[in-house]
């Protein structure tokens, strides 16, 4: 198991050997984001801006006008919030090839707590025109997505998790922009997830399966632009769609899936799981995943609770999906 940030750090170094346009613009966090690997390998293409996220974006944009294709390295939350206005005007509006590595995405940031948790990035970044928004599931996809982004000639925001998760793909995986990845086949209930949470959701599905509830698991690595057809195809025959994300239940993956499905005739019902609309706290990863309902067992538990709830309309799983 390898953490996505390490994968990202190693991959940009590897790309750096043959692509002279790659530069890294850091916000004084290279030893956390693992951009320090690039700094070591290519000191002349590593630009330390210090603690000034807006300026990071401005400088990256400026470099991009001269043929460079920069990666921004800092905690994602300080890009998606502190630097949002420069991202809007200098990157999204100009379509500059600036790549934002949103490190320490989601809830798990090494106990830093709510000031550092980025639980709204997907809602914010997918509202930006021209922005490609990626959330890879594991080390293999993190590498593939990094390589894809390195070639892409427009703005990219990519979630990069701090800590490793159980891999669900392998090194034969090919990243295809927009396409969803079916991690598990199953019955009429589909669990749809994104980012590293998809790995935990796959575990949740295994737990559910042991309890006789067979769910599909669909991973959405491209929040934008989503290949809607690919999602719909993967959901073919589903009656219940449960989105699960390490993100607020507002506006992120759940919002995206709701937008897509609510347009269709006879669409399956959608329920959104993730972080309730409130702030979280400091604590170890396991504690946070348990308390905030994102661990495999807690996901499984909530799925079962929902299926058995009156909200679901009936009271038993069988009836809900009937």
């Amino acid at each position, binding site marked *: 198991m390898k953490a996505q940030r390490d994968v990202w750090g190693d991959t940009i170094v590897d790309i750096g050997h043959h692509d002279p346009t790659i530069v890294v613009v850091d916000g004084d966090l290279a030893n956390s984001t693992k951009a320090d690997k690039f700094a070591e390998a290519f000191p002349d293409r590593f630009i330390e801006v210090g603690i000034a996220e807006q*300026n990071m974006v401005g400088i990256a944009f400026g470099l991009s006008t001269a043929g*460079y294709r920069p990666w921004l390295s800092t905690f994602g939350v300080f890009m998606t919030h502190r630097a949002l206005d420069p991202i809007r005007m200098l990157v999204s509006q100009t379509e500059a090839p600036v790549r934002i590595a949103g490190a320490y995405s989601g809830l798990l940031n090494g106990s830093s707590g709510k000031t550092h948790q980025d639980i709204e990035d997907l809602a914010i970044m997918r509202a930006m025109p021209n922005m490609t928004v990626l959330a890879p599931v594991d080390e293999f996809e993190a590498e593939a997505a990094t390589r894809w982004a390195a070639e892409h000639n427009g703005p990219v925001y990519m979630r990069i998790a701090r800590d490793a998760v159980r891999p669900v793909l392998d090194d034969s995986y090919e990243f295809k922009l927009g396409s969803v990845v079916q991690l598990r086949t199953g019955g009429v209930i589909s669990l749809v997830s994104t980012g590293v949470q998809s790995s935990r959701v796959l575990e949740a599905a295994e737990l559910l399966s042991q309890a006789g509830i067979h769910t599909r698991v669909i991973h959405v690595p491209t929040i934008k632009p989503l290949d809607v057809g690919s999602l719909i195809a993967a959901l073919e025959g589903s009656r219940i769609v449960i989105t699960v994300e390490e993100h607020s239940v507002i506006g992120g993956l759940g919002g995206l899936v709701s937008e897509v499905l609510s347009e269709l005739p006879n669409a399956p019902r959608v329920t959104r799981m993730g972080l309730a609309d409130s702030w979280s706290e400091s604590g170890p990863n396991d504690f946070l995943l348990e308390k905030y309902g994102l661990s495999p067992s807690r996901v499984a538990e909530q799925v079962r609770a929902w299926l058995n709830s009156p909200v679901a309309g009936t009271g038993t799983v069988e009836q809900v999906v009937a």
Partner: protein
Amino acid sequence: MSKDAAADVSVALPHSPDLEELARLSQLVRWHIVNTVAQSKAGHIGGPMSMTDLLVALYFAELRIDPANPLDPARDRFVLSKGHSAIGLYGVLALRGYFPVDELATFDRGNSRLQGHPDMKLTPGIDVSTGSLGQGLSAAVGIALAARKQQSDHRTWVVLGDGELQEGMVWEAVNSASRYELSNLIAIVDLNGLQQFGWPADASRDRFDRSDPWAHVNLRGVFEGFGWNVLDADGHDFSSILEAYSAASDNVVRTSRPTVILARTVKGHGLSFTQGTYKWHNGVATDEQLQIARNELQIEETNR
């Protein structure tokens, strides 16, 4: 000045500063500002007019550019960080030959290459999109840094508003320019002493009809503290401006620090009814005012 005369002007060569010619160009630009905004019924006046002389001097006597080749990698770059003053830049670009002077009439009209704020994707001659204040210097730092890395000796020039300097992002960029020893970066501050609303006049601290935004501050000291070369200029005196540009150009090769020119200007300069008042930050001139403008700027009736 006839329409044909204006056309001639557009091919005037740089590096041949003739002060009278520059003054004449500035009058024309100011006319285009006030007239275009009046026709479009929307736009800024005071900021474009305070920087007019600075831009005319820059584009007609200093910048190493070729309007026929606006993407020449070796060109000097220009960033109008105070993007709300776009119409002033458009006037200069048109006269300099980047696009037809007639196109100014499309400003702010819809389906135009001349947006309310400069758009690098649409307008020939615009190097950086701006409009949200305080971002241009940062972009310029990136451009100047790239020039260093690519061993290109073009310079990067930036015009900032004095109100704009209140944006923290400006100071982030000021600090980076200094750390990376970007002597190829030259910032010009349009110190017109007014912004859009600002602070009420208050005796000892006034400039014109409001309190000077930087009344309590020694801007020279601040920039010097950050490690910049600081030059002063009278932003409405072409010899003073050109002297500052030439000193700044010398700094590019002579020093390892970025240079800022603190250019003292008058907001709305050049028209009796617009100058020295925050109320003409933006505004639409009446027909009567346009007539006054014609007279004061010596624009002949034949000119649009």
